[in-house]
């Protein structure tokens, strides 16, 4: 039967690749629970498209869907349950330790975070990143350069020793 087979294939893919895709989503949206929502939504779109995808294009499609969903979510802001009862002041800020990747990432735009995640966390080529984000390779390079400059300014231990290719 076609359907159970498709579901089984999808479930296998979901469980194998879901954690990695969620990590990428997290680096863009900067919240694990929002990353959960993003990944689940992207996987739903992947399942809808599954019958017309070729095996060799599934990864690229999944990556593109997750990253674009994450960027859209990050731009929209977090989907939280609105309430009028939250305390005025949030949790106290952590002490300034001067070196924190998470805080440095927050300084980047969602698209720059996506580029950093795909280029440096998932280790994809410029061409693959451009394909995933639907932008030109030149844009990937220029945005990478800007992101690195920002990160470098806030991550003092990150000393450049080689120019970006």
């Amino acid at each position, binding site marked *: 039967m076609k359907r*159970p087979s498709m*579901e*089984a294939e*999808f*479930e296998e893919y*979901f*469980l194998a690749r*879901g*954690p990695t895709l*969620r*990590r990428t989503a*997290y*680096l863009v949206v900067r919240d*694990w*629970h929002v990353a*959960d*929502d993003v*990944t*689940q*939504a992207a*996987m*739903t779109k*992947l*399942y*809808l498209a599954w019958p017309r995808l070729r095996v060799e294009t599934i990864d690229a499609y999944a990556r593109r869907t997750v990253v674009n969903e994450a960027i859209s979510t990050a731009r929209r802001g977090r*989907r*939280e*349950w*609105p*309430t*009028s*009862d*939250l305390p005025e002041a*949030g*949790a106290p800020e952590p002490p300034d330790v001067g070196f924190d*990747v*998470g805080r440095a*990432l927050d300084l980047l735009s969602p698209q720059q975070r996506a580029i*950093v*995640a795909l280029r*440096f*966390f998932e*280790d994809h080529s410029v061409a693959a990143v451009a394909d995933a984000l639907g932008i030109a390779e030149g844009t990937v390079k220029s945005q990478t350069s800007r992101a*690195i400059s920002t*990160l470098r300014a806030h*991550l003092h*231990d*990150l*000393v*450049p*020793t*080689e120019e*970006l290719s």
Partner: protein
Amino acid sequence: MIDNELQTLLRDHVAGTEIPFSLRPEESVVRARVARLRKRRRRLAAGIVAAVAVAAVGAPTIVARRADGGRAPVGAEPTAPATVTPSTSGKDDLPRHRALAVTAEEVPALFASLYPGTVSETSPLRIRALGVEFLWNGFATSVRWMPASTGGLRNRETGRMERGRWQDAGPPLERCQTGTTTPARCHVDTTGAAWRTSLVRVDDTALRFVDLYTLDGWDIRLTSANRKDPTEPVLSSDPPFTAEQLLRAARSEVWFR
């Protein structure tokens, strides 16, 4: 090399903050099916509207038989349907969609009123769409309500679900069975609600799920883990709550108006 250094920093950061992966493929499958169903219904509705428009143009004096046997021009009594289609699904008999009565901040304490224990918020309190995660005696616990149809409307002022087109989402057993690859795990209770339970083990982490699909259109999920988070040691081999206890909490009326 900057690439390698940045890669190491990113991977360390992710590894240091990551929470257990608890997403389930069944949920995406269900959402996809609902999306397909809604798309089909939209197309069908569009077709009906188009057909009615054509009929209205061609026959402006159409009359329709009313349920009481009388006859009246269509449009003379907008509240009376032109034709009455017998309900085959029993949807007309379904109870009104209850509205949630709690805010996210109230959930941990209310849960503790059902099962006494020390509840504390995660830091910060993790509020997800229509759900909340908290610690019960140090164990990660969560309660989440999802309207069966994503077409639900939420009051911006109160944060409560006011109404939703949940009737479109199908009866509880159907919703339960479409959410799993093993439909036999779904059961129906005396209220007409469907439910299923599962226990997922990954290494030494145990996570128990209870899913309740109510007759009035709520999909409720409670989870209970055997630890606080992946950076902390496990507190017990099993989650503190049994499936029966979580199911009882899911069925509780304390959450609703």
